[in-house]
């Protein structure tokens, strides 16, 4: 029974990674850039929700709405100021500005909230699910997290396949030049991608901090890296890949924490990533690109 409980909390952690990984994977697929600041957007979202819920004492749903709004604006603004001028530059240059943005967000948060950990009030206030006569307790946060992840995945797939802007996103990720010749506004499409990714980051932040309530300016960076790992694991650019990568990573992390060593769990996660990439160099669901001479 304890295995099952570790497994379920692993799936729930993995679901958070998957939601964050979506932001990485969409931005990478469309703008061909590694958005290193994505993890810090999660942190900003969590702080906004924390302020609304704990400081102003409003309903958690209003908090989440405010967090989503703030992160969407933040994502679009950052894209406009820091990334768009470098659209035609080398990918390394954009990587460096993303790192700069990451430092910037962390230090702004540090100035406003200080470096001490804040206690995040869970946005989920449902009773835990007790099964098998009290032997298996599944936290309500885990259930809400897994359900939200599934809803987000379905909604996003529908959005990309059924709407005009979603099709535009696919076209831009396929071939930016050809897409703009077909009359697609590339800049607008990329801005929408950032908006969606950042909005998802706020939701991920709320779920992450509900499960792990200590909130500091550096809260987002390690989950950000893990989610990025999940995105690469599943095949970067692929939405189902992000889901698979996130869940697998979360389960491995939780099980190795429980059964092997809590200090080595990160090392085990990364080792699995390396093994997978050596067998499938573009991730589980990644497309292989053949080079032409």
């Amino acid at each position, binding site marked *: 029974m304890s295995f099952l409980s570790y497994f379920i909390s692993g799936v729930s952690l993995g679901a958070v990674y998957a939601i964050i990984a979506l932001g990485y994977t969409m931005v990478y697929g469309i703008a061909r850039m590694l958005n290193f600041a994505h993890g810090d957007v999660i942190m900003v979202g969590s702080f906004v929700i924390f302020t609304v819920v704990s400081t102003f004492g409003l309903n958690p749903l209003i908090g989440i709405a405010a967090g989503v709004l703030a992160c969407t604006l933040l994502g679009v603004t950052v894209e406009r100021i820091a990334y768009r001028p470098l659209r035609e530059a080398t990918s390394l*240059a954009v990587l460096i500005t993303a790192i700069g943005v990451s430092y910037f967000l962390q230090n702004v948060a540090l100035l406003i909230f200080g470096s001490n950990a804040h206690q995040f009030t869970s946005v989920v206030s449902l009773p835990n699910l007790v099964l098998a006569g009290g032997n298996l307790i599944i936290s309500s946060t885990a259930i809400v997290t897994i359900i939200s992840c599934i809803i987000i995945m379905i909604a996003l797939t529908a959005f990309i396949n059924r709407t005009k802007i979603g099709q535009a996103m696919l076209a831009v990720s396929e071939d930016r030049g050809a897409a703009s010749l077909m009359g697609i506004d590339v800049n607008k499409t990329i801005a929408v991608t950032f908006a969606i990714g950042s909005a998802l980051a706020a939701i991920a932040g709320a779920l992450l901090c509900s499960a792990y309530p200590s909130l500091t300016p550096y809260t987002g960076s390690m989950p950000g890296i893990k989610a990025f790992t999940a995105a690469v694991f599943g095949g*970067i650019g692929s939405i189902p890949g992000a889901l698979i990568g996130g869940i697998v990573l979360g389960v491995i992390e939780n099980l190795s924490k429980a059964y092997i060593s809590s200090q080595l769990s990160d090392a085990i996660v*990364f*080792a699995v*990533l390396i093994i997978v990439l050596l067998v499938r160099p573009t991730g589980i669901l990644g497309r292989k690109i053949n080079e032409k001479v």
Partner: protein
Amino acid sequence: MTKNKVRIQNAVTYGMVILFWVVIQVMDKTGHLTSLFKGLLVPLCMYAILAVSLNLTVGILGELSLGHAGFMCLGAFSGAFLTNCLETAVPGVGLRFFLALILGAAVAGVFGLLIGIPVLRLKGDYLAIVTLAFGEIIKNLINVLYVGRDANGFHFSMKDTTSLGLDEETGVILVKGAQGITGTPRAATFTIGILLLLLTLFIVLNLIHSRTGRAIMSIRDNRIAAESIGINITKYKLMAFSISAALAGMAGVLYAHSLSTLKASSDNFGYNKSILILVFVVLGGLGNMRGSIIAAMLLTALPELLRGLNDYRMLIYAIVLIVMTIFNSSPKAIELRSVVMSKLRGGAKKEVA
């Protein structure tokens, strides 16, 4: 003609480093150095070495590596371990430090080779994330490593100090997991740092301007074309990668000997450190060793020089980073710069005429 140009360029780079050393010595003798700045001198050299060595991988070989801090960590720990082990056998601190430098570089170099064999088959961002993963694994493993020594020899453990099973009388714990290695003599000085930086430059610059270096750069520019003229891709990739790792290991030994306690913490050897070094390389210019040194030194000194601004210094650092990159790399900024430059030059020509 071009050979001469290369020689002049290299001489300027070496000269710049030596000039820096002279200026610091003069300032030190005349008492113009604050203690804050003195503490910064060894890290300045260390970051310059790290930046030059990473530039070999990123700028010359053209592969993005985010695991440089891992190699530095390996060098730091193997070097500090040796210095502490030989405490009784070799009394001279200088000699022990020298041996530690060689061992640190060798260990990091060998690991660079071992990691490079599987990793360098990957491309681009996949390579970047795998090198990041290796760096984190190295840091995590060293964090749970316990090593002790007694009359029976060395004991290793991944759990705690008691499971080492040391002899009570003769047992000494050398590596203490998350608490790391303590009691390393602080033998690293600014002069040694500068000498190591010059050595690094000598190795890297000579490599770049040799037949081997040209082979490495041809892989960067076009892998398939390079392969078609008979260049052994794997061999040259591995060579560049492991030399870069060995130099990072050497910088790690320098670092270990500037601290009394060495810990494999995230602040010291996490992926953020690797990213920091990458920032120096990119801002200094890919493939430009002189630029790497200047960027490493300026950006290391900047947060310290801004100390008067207290809480705002890292914020300013972040803004400087963003603005500098946009100014350096944005097509519009480059166009603007060339317009301004041509106007200035045009004006100058008219004056001459």
